[in-house]
């Protein structure tokens, strides 16, 4: 198990390094000209343009820029020189081209919003989706099964911006049943945090739970048709024990992989959900940064998403090994 873990972590580090090089090259060496977009004059005069490029460190050779960036991530760095230099402590992801604010500060504001949306929705879609899928499989052919399949088909075919706007229109603006979505730090008020997040949770939760319900149903049906389940039932084990002890554990294993990867992807930024509900999470921050050609923020959000996805992959691999001993052996 230890060697397995070390192997996975090393692979993750290599992957992250490759991603950082590719991302840096794409964004910093591409055709983007952030100095022009930042320039106060409508068309930048060459002196001011050169000045901004110098301030941003973009007049340095690419390799130096990358080395400096990576040094900042691990040990921090000073950006600029003289009296206008900014001290950027580790993990330094650069400073915003627009505001000269350290990107880590910007992400520290945005990430809790994404985390709140995703974790809440994750709980909703796991409980509702897997629960409904399991029940549907156990009660195959009944009304419950048909309702569950109908639910899956309906919500799986919906888009977040459609369902989100629809729910907001009816539940917030027409009936006033729910408060408008907004992020309040749970440290400030857990109640207001939960109420503010309710609509995104319901929307993202319902759409994803539809997919999980279908997957869970299919997995459970497959497992229930296995010989060992028939054997367990023939042995006279209580039906509840057969379902939950034997069938559920086997059926849930592939779902863990998908859920883990989904969680990782979503933590990198749920752009559409954040935009639908106007929540300033990591995804929306990245989109705004793209509009502004604010490369350090784009770079940081891409790296953050990559780190989370790679980490979730490692976690999923480990979890998989825990749930299914055959993985460890291979």
């Amino acid at each position, binding site marked *: 198990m230890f060697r397995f873990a070390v192997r996975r972590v090393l692979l993750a580090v290599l992957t992250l390094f490759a991603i950082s090089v590719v991302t840096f090259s794409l964004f910093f060496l591409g055709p983007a000209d952030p100095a*022009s977009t930042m320039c106060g004059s409508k068309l930048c005069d060459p002196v001011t343009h050169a000045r901004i490029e110098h301030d941003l460190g973009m007049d340095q050779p690419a390799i130096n820029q990358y080395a400096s960036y990576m040094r900042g991530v691990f040990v921090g760095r000073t950006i600029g020189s003289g009296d206008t230099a900014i001290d950027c402590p580790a993990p330094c992801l650069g400073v915003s081209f627009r*505001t000269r604010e350290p990107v880590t500060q*910007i992400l520290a504001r945005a990430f809790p919003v994404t985390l709140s949306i995703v974790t809440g929705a994750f709980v909703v879609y796991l409980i509702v989706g897997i629960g409904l899928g399991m029940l549907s499989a156990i009660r195959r052919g009944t009304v419950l099964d048909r309702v569950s399949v109908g639910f899956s088909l309906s919500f799986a075919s919906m888009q977040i911006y459609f369902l989100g706007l629809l729910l907001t229109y009816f539940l917030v*603006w027409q009936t006033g049943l729910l408060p408008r979505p907004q992020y309040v730090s749970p440290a400030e008020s857990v109640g207001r945090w939960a109420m503010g997040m309710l609509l995104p949770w319901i929307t993202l939760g319902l759409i994803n739970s539809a997919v999980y319900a279908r997957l869970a149903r299919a997995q459970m049906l497959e497992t229930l048709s296995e010989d060992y389940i028939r054997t367990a039932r023939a042995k006279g084990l209580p039906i509840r024990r057969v379902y939950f002890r034997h069938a559920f554990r086997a059926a849930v294993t592939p779902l863990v992989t998908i859920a883990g990867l989904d969680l990782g992807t979503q933590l990198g930024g749920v752009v559409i959900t954040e*935009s639908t509900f106007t929540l*300033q999470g990591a995804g929306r921050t990245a989109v705004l940064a793209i509009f502004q050609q604010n490369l350090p923020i784009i770079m940081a959000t891409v790296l953050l998403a990559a780190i989370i996805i790679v980490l979730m992959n490692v976690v999923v691999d480990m979890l998989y090994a825990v749930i299914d001993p055959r993985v460890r052996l291979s």
Partner: protein
Amino acid sequence: MRHPVRALVVSALVVGLAATGCDKNTGGTGTGNEPEKAQSAIVVDYKGETPTPAPEVEGATPGGKLTIMQEGDFEHLSPQQIYVSNALAYANLFHRQLTGYIEDGKGGPLKLVGDLATNAGETTDNGKTWKYTLREGVKFEDGTPITSKDVAYGIAVSFSTYGVQGPQYLQTALDPERAYKGPFDSKGVAVPGVTTPDDKTIVFTFATPHAELPYLVSYPTATPISEAKFTKEKYETAFQSTGPYKIKEYKRDAYLDLEKNPNWDPKSDPIRHAYVDTVHFDFTVDGESETNRVIAGQGDDAASIMTGNVVPAKIAEVKGNADVMKRTISAATPFVRYLYINTQRVTDLQVRQALNYAFDRDAYIKAVGGYDVAEPASTTLAPVVPGYKKFDEYPGANGGSNGDVEKAKSLLQGKTVPKLKFCFANTPVNQTVMAVIQGSLTKAGFTFSSSPIDPAAYYTTVGDKTTDCDIMAGGWAQDFPDGDSTLGVLFDGSKIVDKGNNNLGYLNDAAINAKLLELRGLADRSQAAAQYGDLDQQIMKAAPVIPLRYDRFFSIYGSKVGGTFASPLWAQFNITGIYVKS
């Protein structure tokens, strides 16, 4: 100035084109601009005759909380970095400059007056030297009196890293070579051309006349900064206020709460009032939710204003609701869109005129969202520019707005017009809209090769004098309310350089250049204003552009809001006399 950069608005994916048809504002305060009224004059108060405090707003009541909804945080509030229209409008709440504007919601002339200074500026040598004297009682929020040295320090900061994103007009006028780098990189060096003989007086000296200086020092470039209190980047969120409100709490990307500044003296201010107790900026909205919230007006939202336009998907709903329409303002803005015709390449005047005749304005306006958010343009000056003159050199057939294809064809008779290279910034909106434009011009026999250009590289590409684009999409908004801030930038052939041109029609007409120079030299800008309308018409006769549209402000305020109207300068609500109805 620039439009704010907005984040992706998902609702834009589901909007439809709005219904069309003109409407008229019947603002609840009775002070809203009507679409047909244009800002046609400017009064510059060189003599310091504007009274202080500002005259009371009729019906105003003190107290209450005003909510201002804005999609996303301000890019900058550190004064020397401010250049985006919404920040320029709302910085009036906490930043003061040497001069400032008094806007008239009833259509009267715009006034440029002394703000921190006693007048709009004194010059005795036709604009080469300007003197400003600070008013009595002007203070920072901590009670420290504002001195001319603080103003000079603010201007010095504008030359540094902490001013590089703001307007650069004043800096370039003072130091054309831009050798001075601000108080950090050019330590111990005085700001070129700025002297402070005493604590109340600041003098600007230029090598050449700068009649426009009173406008330039109305920008936050000329906001005073106390050297001891300047905290560099941190100043963005913790600045020293000089206006009626100061920061109570600022949570980046979430909200900004302002409270009254006890050290602001209304007797020192001819422009602003401070009727409301607190101002709350909510940055967690988008166009859709702003509109929904102001329409619904629940709780604090009844005393709120929007900073964006009503989203197209909601226009029909708004127009169908008589109650909401009472608090809707529709007004002209400084933003104008054009198709520049490269006169270096399309040298035949009749071809350029034919392009103007063939353009179907009605189809275009419908394609960009309807007459509520845009108005067909026929001039290069926006209707809010002082001196604007309404004319149409290329009217549609039978007085309509669908162009005059027959007239265009007759102008083209006997000519062979090659395929025209049509360049535009490659955005989703442009992809649709430019096809509509080309469709209408094609009817007259023109043919095009489309050249969508990466938006980031667009102005660099078309601003290169050697560009092979024949037609280029673009837009403009005056940086200060003076005809020279449009015509002098876009059509002065003497300013054409190899790269970085704003004159994208590359018009270089000796008579026009001479007239621009003559008007620019007039020290009294109120008098100069009146002549820019005629010059605009002279330019349009040369057809270096096809004017496409004037953007319109179409926005709603809450039922409890009074004393506001559309600002002709910033395309936002005017907040200098705003109050919450009790």
